[in-house]
C-alpha cells in the first residue's frame, strides 16, 4: 500500500512552475507560495512572540460564544481576502480576454470554482454564523448558546473545510465544476483527478458544521431567552437568526446527500449521477438546488436582521412595521423551499412546471419588497444619521432593489431561456450577495465591533471602505448586465466578440476599486487597533442602542449578564433609558457557572481536515484514523464531569459595580459626536427631549 495514496511530487503546485511554466502555472505557484508563506509567518509569530499559550487557552480551546464568533469572523475575513483577490484576477482576465488573456480556460475554471465555493461556504456562512454567535445570546439575555461544545465543533468542521481549500492551492488542483459541482462533469469519467474531491469534502465538512450550528441556534433562541423576552419582543436580528437557523437545519441535508452520493460515484463506482447505468445528473441538480435556494436566504436573512437594527438605531426611532417584518421573514423562509426549479428552467421540463415555479419565485418578491418599504418607513419621521453602518444600509436599499428587479426578470422562464448561464445571472446574484449579504455583514461588523472589543472602528477609513464598496460594486457588476443581455456566457475566460470588451474593461476597473475598498477595510482595522485607547467606549452604548446587548459593558465580560435581565418591552434597553432605570443596581449577585475550555475543537479541526485529506488522496490509513479519533474523543469527553467553572459572586459583583460606576461617571455624548473620540459609550438623552 502506498502511504501517500495517489499523491506524488508532480501534484505539488511548484512543480509545473519549475518544469515548464506558462503564466497560469506561475500565478498558481504564486498563490500556493502565499499560502505556504502565510502559514509560516503565522506560526513564527505565534512562537516568537510567545502568543501560543494565549492563543490556545484564550481562543482555540475556548467555548465562549463570543470568542468562537470572533474566530468565525476572522476566518471569514481571511477567506474574503482570498475570494476578492480571485475575483479581481478573473475580472482582469476578462478585461484582457478578447481572443486570449493570461489564464488558461482550465485555470479560470479552478478560479471561479474556488471563488464561488469560498465566498458562499467559507466567507458568507462563517461571517453570519459568527455574528449570530456573538449577538444572539446577548440580544436574548443568555450567558451562552445552548451547546457550547457543539459550537466549537461546528467551527472545527467549517475550519477544516476551509483548510482543505487552502491546501488545494498547494497540493493537487481544485474542481473546475463551479460552486454547484454539477455531474457528470465532476464525475470520475470527466475529472478523474482530485479536483472535484477537494470540492466535495470541503463543502461536505462545512455543511456538517452549518447543520450543527443551526441546531444550536434554534435551541438557544427557543430555550435560553431571559424572562419576559417573548417572541413578540425578540429583536429583529434574532428573529432573522432564528429563521436562518431553521433553514440551516432543513436545507443542508439535501446538500450532504448530494455530495455524499457524488462521492460514492467517484470513489466506489456507484451510478447515481453518471451518464450510464441508470445514473441521472438531473437528480443532482434537484438535490443541489433544493439546498441551494434556501441557502441564498440563509445568507440574506441575517443581513436583513442587521439592516433592521441599523435603520432603527441610526434613525433614533422604533422599527417601523415590526410585525410585518417578522411575517415577511417567515414567509420568505417558507417560500424559499418552493422555488428551486428556477435554477434550471432550461432543463426541458414541461411549461406547467416552469410556470408554477416561476410564479412561486416572483411571489417571494412581495415580502422582500415589504421589508424594503418598512426600512424606508423606519427612517421616515426619524432623525437619520449617516454613520458608517448606515452608509452600507442605504447603499444596500438602493442597489438591492435593482437586483430584485433583475430577479423578477429571471423568474420568467421565457426570459431566463435567454439569460440563463450568462453574465446577466452573474450580475444578478452578485447584486444580491454584495449589497445584500456582504454590506449587511460589514454593517454588522462596524455596528457591533465596539460592543465586542470595547473600542469603535475608525470612521474615516470606514467611510472610504463603504463608499469604495458601493462604487466598486456598481462599476464591476452593472456592465455585466449589459454583456449578459448580449449573450456573453458566464465562466468564459476568453471571447471573440469585440463589443464585449469595453464593458469588461469598465468591470475590471470596478474590481480595482473593490480591491481598494478591501484595503481600506484593512487600514480601518489597523488604525483602530493602533488608536484603540482613544476610541474606547467603556460605557458600552456608543450608538444610543435599543436592545439588550447595549446595556452590557464593552467588551462584554465572559458571563455576559451579571444578572439575567427581566425584559418588559420590545427595545427593552431603549425603554429603560427613557425611564432612567438603567442605572438601578441589582440587589444581589450569584455565582455563575461557565463551560470550561475544551481541546475537542482543535482536535476535531485537525481530525476532520485529515479525514478530508485522506479521502481526497485515497490515503486510507489517515482517513480511518481520523474517523476513529472523533467518536472516541466524544466518548472520552462524556466521562468528564468537571466541565464547568464557577465565577464567584464577589468577582461578578466587583466587575459589574465597577462598570456601573464608570458608566455613570462618563460624560454623555450627543449624536453629533457619535463617531468621534468624544464618544465613550454613554448616550445623552436628546432623543427624549
Amino acid at each position, binding site marked *: 500500500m502506498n502511504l501517500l495514496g495517489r499523491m506524488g511530487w508532480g501534484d505539488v503546485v511548484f512543480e509545473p512552475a519549475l518544469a515548464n511554466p506558462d503564466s497560469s502555472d506561475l500565478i498558481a505557484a504564486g498563490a500556493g507560495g502565499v499560502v505556504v508563506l502565510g502559514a509560516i509567518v503565522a506560526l513564527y509569530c505565534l512562537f516568537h512572540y510567545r502568543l501560543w499559550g494565549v492563543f490556545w487557552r484564550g481562543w482555540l480551546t475556548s467555548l465562549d460564544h463570543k470568542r468562537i464568533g470572533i474566530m468565525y469572523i476572522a476566518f471569514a475575513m481571511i477567506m474574503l481576502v482570498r475570494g476578492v483577490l480571485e475575483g479581481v484576477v478573473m475580472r482582469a482576465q476578462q478585461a484582457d480576454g478578447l481572443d486570449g488573456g493570461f489564464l*488558461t*480556460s482550465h485555470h479560470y*475554471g479552478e478560479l471561479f470554482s474556488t471563488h464561488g465555493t469560498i465566498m458562499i461556504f467559507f466567507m458568507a456562512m462563517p461571517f453570519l454564523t459568527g455574528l449570530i454567535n456573538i449577538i444572539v445570546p446577548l440580544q436574548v439575555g443568555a450567558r451562552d448558546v445552548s451547546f457550547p461544545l457543539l459550537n466549537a465543533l461546528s467551527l472545527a468542521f467549517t475550519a477544516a473545510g476551509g483548510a482543505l481549500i487552502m491546501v488545494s492551492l498547494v497540493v493537487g488542483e481544485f474542481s473546475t*465544476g*463551479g460552486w454547484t459541482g454539477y455531474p457528470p*462533469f465532476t464525475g470520475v*469519467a*470527466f475529472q*478523474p483527478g482530485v479536483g472535484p474531491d477537494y470540492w466535495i469534502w470541503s463543502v461536505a465538512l462545512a455543511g456538517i458544521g452549518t447543520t450543527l450550528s443551526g441546531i444550536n441556534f434554534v435551541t438557544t433562541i427557543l430555550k435560553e431567552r431571559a424572562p419576559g423576552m417573548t417572541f413578540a419582543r425578540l429583536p429583529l436580528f434574532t428573529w432573522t437568526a432564528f429563521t436562518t437557523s431553521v433553514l440551516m437545519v432543513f436545507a443542508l441535508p439535501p446538500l450532504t446527500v448530494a455530495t455524499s452520493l457524488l462521492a460514492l460515484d467517484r470513489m466506489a463506482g456507484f451510478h447515481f449521477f453518471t*451518464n450510464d447505468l441508470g445514473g441521472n*445528473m438531473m437528480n443532482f441538480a434537484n438535490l443541489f438546488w433544493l439546498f441551494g435556494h434556501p441557502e441564498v436566504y440563509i445568507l440574506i436573512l441575517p443581513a436583513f436582521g442587521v439592516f433592521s437594527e441599523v435603520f432603527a438605531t441610526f434613525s433614533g*426611532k*422604533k422599527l*417601523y*412595521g*415590526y*410585525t*410585518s417584518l417578522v411575517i415577511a421573514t417567515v414567509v420568505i423562509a417558507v417560500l424559499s423551499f418552493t422555488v428551486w426549479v428556477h435554477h434550471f428552467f*432550461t*432543463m*426541458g421540463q*414541461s411549461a406547467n412546471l416552469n410556470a408554477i415555479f*416561476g*410564479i412561486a419565485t*416572483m411571489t417571494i*418578491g*412581495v415580502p422582500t419588497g*415589504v421589508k424594503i*418599504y*418598512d426600512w*424606508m418607513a423606519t*427612517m421616515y*419621521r*426619524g*432623525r*437619520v*444619521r*449617516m454613520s458608517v453602518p448606515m452608509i452600507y444600509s*442605504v447603499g444596500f436599499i*438602493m442597489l438591492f432593489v435593482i437586483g430584485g*428587479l433583475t430577479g*423578477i*426578470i429571471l423568474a*420568467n*422562464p*421565457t*426570459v431566463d*431561456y*435567454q439569460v*440563463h448561464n450568462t453574465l446577466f445571472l452573474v450580475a444578478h446574484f452578485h447584486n444580491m450577495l454584495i449589497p445584500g449579504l456582504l454590506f449587511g455583514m460589514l454593517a454588522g461588523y462596524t455596528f457591533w465591533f465596539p460592543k465586542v472589543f470595547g473600542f469603535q472602528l475608525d470612521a474615516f477609513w470606514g467611510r472610504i471602505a463603504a463608499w469604495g464598496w458601493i462604487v466598486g460594486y456598481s462599476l464591476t457588476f452593472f456592465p455585466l448586465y*449589459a454583456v449578459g*443581455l*448580449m*449573450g456573453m456566457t*458566464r465562466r468564459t475566460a*476568453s471571447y471573440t*466578440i*469585440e*463589443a464585449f470588451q*469595453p464593458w469588461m474593461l469598465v468591470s475590471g476597473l470596478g474590481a480595482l476599486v473593490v480591491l481598494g475598498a478591501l484595503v481600506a477595510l484593512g487600514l480601518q482595522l489597523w488604525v483602530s487597533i493602533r488608536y484603540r485607547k482613544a476610541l474606547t467606549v467603556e460605557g458600552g452604548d456608543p450608538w444610543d442602542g435599543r436592545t439588550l446587548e447595549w446595556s452590557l459593558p464593552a467588551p462584554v465580560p465572559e458571563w455576559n449578564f451579571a444578572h439575567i435581565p427581566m425584559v418588559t418591552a420590545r427595545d427593552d434597553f431603549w425603554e429603560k433609558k427613557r425611564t432612567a432605570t438603567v442605572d438601578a443596581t441589582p440587589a444581589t449577585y450569584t455565582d455563575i457557572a461557565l463551560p470550561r475550555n475544551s481541546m475537542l475543537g482543535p482536535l476535531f479541526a485537525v481530525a476532520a481536515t485529515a479525514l478530508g485529506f485522506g479521502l481526497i488522496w485515497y490515503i486510507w490509513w489517515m482517513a480511518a484514523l481520523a474517523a476513529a479519533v472523533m467518536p472516541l474523543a466524544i466518548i472520552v469527553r462524556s466521562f468528564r464531569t468537571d466541565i464547568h467553572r464557577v465565577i464567584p459572586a464577589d468577582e461578578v459583583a466587583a466587575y459589574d459595580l465597577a462598570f456601573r460606576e464608570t458608566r455613570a461617571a462618563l460624560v454623555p455624548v450627543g449624536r453629533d459626536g457619535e463617531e468621534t473620540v468624544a464618544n465613550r459609550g454613554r448616550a445623552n438623552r436628546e432623543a427624549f427631549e
Partner: protein
Amino acid sequence: MIAASFRAHVRLVPLLLSVLFLAGCIPDGISFLTPAGPVADAQKEHLISITVISLIVVLPVLIGTPLIILRYRRKGGARYRPDWAYSGPLEALMWGVPVLIVGVLGWQLAKATYELDPTAVIAGDPPLEVQVVGLNWKWLFIYPEQGVAALNAMPMPEGRPVSLHLTSDTVMQSFMIGALGSQIYTMPGMETQLNLRADQVGQYRGVNTQFSGAGFDQQSFVAQVMTPEDFDDWVAAARSSGTALDAAAYTQLGQSSTPAEAAAMFAGTGAPAGSVWFSEVETGLFGSIIGKYMSAEGVADSDQTGSPSYQPVQSEGDVE
C-alpha cells in the same frame, strides 16, 4: 387589460435601452436584443414589459430613499416621531401594491411560458427536423430527412420552423442561438426539444452556455439562415462534396477538440473554413448516441466521448 395599457409606454423603452447600450453597440446576430425570429422577438418584448411594470415598485424606493434621508436628516428639523411604528393604510399599500404587481406579472409569466414553450412546434410550414449532438467542444447537426450533417454550422431555411432534437455525447451542455430563441440543456442519454424560426437571412451566433472544460469558451457555431432555395442548394452541395459521417468519422469527432481543430481533421469537404459538411449519415446515428447510455453494460471511460480517458477501439485499421 392592465398589461395592454402598458403597451404604449413600452414603446418608449427600446429608445431608453438603446441609449443604455450606446445606440448600435450591440452587434447583430449575437443576442435577442437584435432578434431575428418570433421567439427571440417575444422574449425581448417580454423582458421590456416586465422591466417597465416592475419599475412601479422599484422607482419609489430609488426616488424615495434619498428624499427621506434628506428630509429626515438629523439636523433637518423635520418632525421627529420616535414612537411612530405603524400605520394601517400604509401597511395595506406596502403589501397591496406588490401583490397586485406580482399578480399581473404572474399572469403574464404563465401566458408567455405556455406560448413560448420550447417543445411547442411553431406555426407555419411543416418544420424542418434537425438533430443536434453536443460534443467536446463543438456542435454536430444532423438533418435526417436530407441525410446530411454539418459540424460547427447549422444551415437553415428562412421562414420555415425548425424542430430541434438535442442530446449530448459528453457532459451536460446548453444550446443557445440568442438571436433566434430559447436555450435548452442537452444531456447524455436524454433528448430535449427546441423549436425556432428565423425570419431573416443572416448569420447568427450559437453557443454552449454550460461550462464543460478547457475548450468551452470556443464552443460556438454559426446558424446560417438562407433562402429555401439556397438551403436546397446547400443540401445538394453537402451531398456531393461532403464526407461520410460513419462510425470512424464519429469516433474522430468524439475526441475532445475545439471547433477549429475538429474542422481541420475533416478538411476539404467544400464547407467554408471552420465548418464541416457530411454527405451521408449512418442511419439511426442520433438514436444510437442516446441509446448507448441505456445499455446494461454501461459505457467504459475509454468509450466515453469527451472523457480524458477516451481511447476508442479504432475501426478499419486506421490506427495511428
